[in-house]
């Protein structure tokens, strides 16, 4: 929520500490683009920020319907922020349906900007209003700015030779222009972007730029209600360095590439398009010059199988998908476990089961990651918590996969994939190399010779003289690597595979407490993208004197060596998750601790306020 300091700068602009803006409109209205451009400008202005794009699964749902509404929320501030904000201070509603869906979230007294041009009788009815919300008390508790944005946009591009349809499409840029005026954002990055994007269609670029500038000029000259003014959100004080705005997909992509280079391997990335994982396929496909071979397979199964074949041949095999696709890959993941080949599976989780809510975020594939295969089939599972963390987790996934000769499940989330945040660019030289050594010694070789310490088998790749061997899904003899149906051998091999993965616990950092004491009344244990919300909620409670700590788990399997002891130091363990209670089950079964679940399965991130209330209430129980 915006903290109204009522201070003004030298230009008479009100100074705000932070603000949350939500752009909402039809899925064809360009709200994601508006949000992304506003984010870019905001990032360049030096604010800390966090975004939350929230769009329907349909590419172009029927115009004017509530289920076709697409929204983009941005929280930016002069201080460090961790979430896209609980409730918008400003709502831009491009049509009645957007108003209908999002008005309930706007803070009381918040600013509402409406595109009057879209409030026709038919649209109002389509949105499900019995009567126009402009003509009753629906909007009484908000500061409403009604502008016929459609008409304004048409007027602004009147002199440019584009069709009416093309002209109207620029209304999101008009809106962006107005918001740039209101929050003192620079329009130049957007102008540069438009010129680049529509380089071959100069008239379209011109129309969009004209609309952008017209929106801005409107703010400067129009007689807006007296309580509406312009605002300034000063730069956030952050660590010195070079920054850029990134999404979790970009950082994952760079992390995988960094990891591969540290391992001295080329990436073979096989994937099948699926929401919300496809952007990683797109990003890596642009890195061909960097030793990355990408393969759009015929299905999820082929994607993972091709990747396993590539790992067998000496590449770093990586595949990505979302829950339903991971399900299809699971037989091949079993093969990866039994053949002990390095492989990385990036799961951009989305709301399930089955198709579920493809564009909504969830953390409900933890069971699938840890347990979801036939046979005793252990594999390491790590989960990223922020867009920045996606980079580190990707490198770590490569390190573990190659050092331990194992597939690694890297849990990402739809929310992390799409949401933007400023990122202090790392220096890849800070990452210790972990070069892979392929087997070459023929003396005494067999494919399942193991490193005594890591228990990893040696990796002999085709093309190596004298190391010709056969691997496959049938159990292998511990001592020769040949097919074995021996019962004691199967027992031994199953134990060795499990021990190898559990041994990773000695090679990962001990679990630390993010904030609060190392023991006490309550610990809130999270994983994945809930980091920001839990962090803010627990800190607020701590500031209020409550004895509550925050633990955030990156290593889902194996769990950190000290985690059990750490958890046992708290009277209460609360586990908020965007699923029906999965990590909580794992913790209970591993440590026999009375951990409690706090489940939210709405396809939406946790709100800080909700979490804070829940923490307070559970502490009193």
């Amino acid at each position, binding site marked *: 929520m915006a903290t109204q300091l009522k201070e003004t700068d030298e230009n008479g602009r009100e100074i705000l500490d932070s603000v949350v803006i939500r752009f909402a409109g039809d899925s064809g209205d360009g709200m994601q683009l508006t949000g992304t451009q506003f984010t870019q400008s905001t990032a360049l202005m030096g604010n800390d920020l966090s975004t939350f794009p929230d769009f329907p699964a349909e590419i172009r749902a029927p115009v004017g319907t509530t289920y076709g509404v697409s929204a983009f929320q941005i929280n930016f501030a002069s201080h460090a922020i961790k979430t896209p904000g609980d409730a918008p201070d400003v709502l831009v509603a491009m049509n009645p349906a957007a108003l209908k869906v999002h008005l309930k979230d706007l803070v009381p007294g918040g600013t509402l900007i409406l595109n009057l041009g879209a409030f026709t009788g038919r649209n109002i009815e389509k949105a499900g209003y019995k009567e126009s919300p402009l003509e009753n008390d629906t909007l009484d508790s908000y500061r409403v700015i009604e502008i016929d944005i459609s008409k304004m946009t048409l007027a602004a591009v009147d002199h440019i030779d584009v069709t009416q349809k093309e002209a109207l499409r620029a209304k999101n840029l008009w809106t962006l222009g107005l918001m740039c005026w209101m929050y003192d954002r620079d329009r130049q*990055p957007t102008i540069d972007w438009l010129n680049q994007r529509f380089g071959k269609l100069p008239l379209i670029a011109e129309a969009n730029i004209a609309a952008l500038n017209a929106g801005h000029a409107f703010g400067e000259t129009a007689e807006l209600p007296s309580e509406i003014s312009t605002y300034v959100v000063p730069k956030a004080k952050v660590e010195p360095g070079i920054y850029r705005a990134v999404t979790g997909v970009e950082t994952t992509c760079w992390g995988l590439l960094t990891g591969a280079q540290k391992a001295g391997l080329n990436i073979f990335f096989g994937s099948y398009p699926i929401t919300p994982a496809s952007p990683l396929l797109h990003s890596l496909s642009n890195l*061909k010059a960097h030793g990355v071979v990408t393969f759009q397979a015929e299905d999820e199964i*082929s994607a993972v199988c091709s990747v396993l074949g590539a790992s067998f041949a*000496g590449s770093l095999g990586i595949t990505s998908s979302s829950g339903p696709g991971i399900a299809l890959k699971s037989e091949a993941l079993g093969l990866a476990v039994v053949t002990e080949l390095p492989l990385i599976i990036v799961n951009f989780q989305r709301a399930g089961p089955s198709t579920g809510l493809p564009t909504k975020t969830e953390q409900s594939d933890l069971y699938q990651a840890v347990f979801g295969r036939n046979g005793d089939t252990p594999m390491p599972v790590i989960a990223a918590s922020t867009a920045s963390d996606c980079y580190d987790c990707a490198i770590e996934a490569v390190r573990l996969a190659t050092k331990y000769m194992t597939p690694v499940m890297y849990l990402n989330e739809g929310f992390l994939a799409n949401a933007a945040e400023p990122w202090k*660019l790392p220096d*890849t030289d800070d990452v210790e190399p972990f070069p892979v050594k392929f087997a070459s010694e023929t003396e005494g070789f067999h494919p399942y010779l193991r490193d005594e310490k890591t228990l990893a088998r040696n990796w002999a790749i*085709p093309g190596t*003289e004298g190391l010709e061997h056969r691997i496959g899904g049938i159990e292998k003899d511990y001592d020769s690597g040949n097919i074995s149906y021996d019962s004691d051998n199967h027992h031994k091999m199953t134990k060795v595979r499990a021990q190898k993965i559990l041994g990773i616990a000695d090679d990962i950092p001990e679990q630390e407490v993010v904030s609060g004491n190392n023991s006490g009344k309550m610990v809130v244990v999270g994983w994945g993208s809930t980091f920001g919300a839990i962090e803010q909620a627990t800190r607020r409670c701590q500031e209020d004197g409550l004895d509550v700590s925050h633990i955030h788990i990156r290593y889902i399997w194996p769990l950190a060596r000290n985690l059990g002891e750490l958890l046992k130091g708290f009277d209460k363990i609360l586990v908020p998750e965007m699923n029906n209670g999965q990590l909580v089950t794992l913790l209970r079964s591993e440590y026999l601790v009375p951990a409690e679940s706090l489940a939210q399965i709405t396809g939406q991130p946790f709100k800080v306020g909700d979490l804070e209330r829940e923490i307070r209430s559970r502490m009193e129980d």
Partner: protein
Amino acid sequence: MNVQSPPEALKPNDYASDQEVRWCPGCGDYAIVKAVQKALANMGADPKNTVFVSGIGCAARFPYYMATYGFHTIHGRAPAVATGVKLANPGLDVWVIGGDGDMLSIGGNHTLHVLRRNIDVQVLLFNNEIYGLTKGQYSPTSKVGTRSPSTPAGSVDSPVSACVFALGCNARFVARSVDTNLKVLPGLMQEAKENTGASFVEILQNCIVYNDGVYSSFTDKANIADGQVVCEHGKPLLYGKDKEKGLRMTPGKMELEVVTIGENGVTEADILLHDETNRPLALMLASMQPPNFPVAMGVIFRDPGLSYDAAVYEQIAEVTEKSPAIPINELMHKGKTWTVV
């Protein structure tokens, strides 16, 4: 990377692994493994650069018996695994082995795509028209009426023809032979290997336990001459003991017919010459079924084109030339950044 020059000539047996072969006595697979080992020896294949990838089924045990690199994968997925092997290292000589259930039922989709992409691998489909390893259920190539544990009253669904399927997938090399035809098989393997791109070879294989004699109407010694026609590019499609029978286009119709030279005024000049680059002709030949037609053998279709793996690496080279790799640090700094001091 692509050099196949071992220090000294290897013999067929040198390509056999030390593992005991565990197919049923009398299984056609024994003959096929021998034929492949012979073909590799003839070609001077380098074991270290040779990879056999298989799915699941009797045929899929094949890699274990070869002294090369091998990957026994999961049911139906061998073409997908092989795709990754070949793309990761195009210098490898990759062979895909599977049966009719493996490649046309559970893995039909991958067979389709490995063929249409034209990845430079050899796909050997051992077709015995039955599920052997699961004890005798009918398969997607079983004839209508096949009695099996799962179809006690006979199967009712139409079979697929492996070669017709491959041609429909846009395969650029489609051949057919019989497991016991040791005179022809090694040479055919070599032709498959020498073809750049996906080479599809259907090997009609007798399952002695569950489907014995399924092909005897045209593979028994006495039936070969009248039951098979060997396709050779540019040569007349003649068959029969004295090459007295042949195939020609029915005048005025888009169909093949069997004619006898000397009957009804038919001369050798009327007989169709095989054109291995003609896909519609290949489809007609591959579709021929006994007893009204001979079964087409040999290279039914061959029309080489750029392989997928070659195209992928050509594109990588082009892109790299246009904008060479830069350090990741620089890559991450490209685009809009800002500095905080």
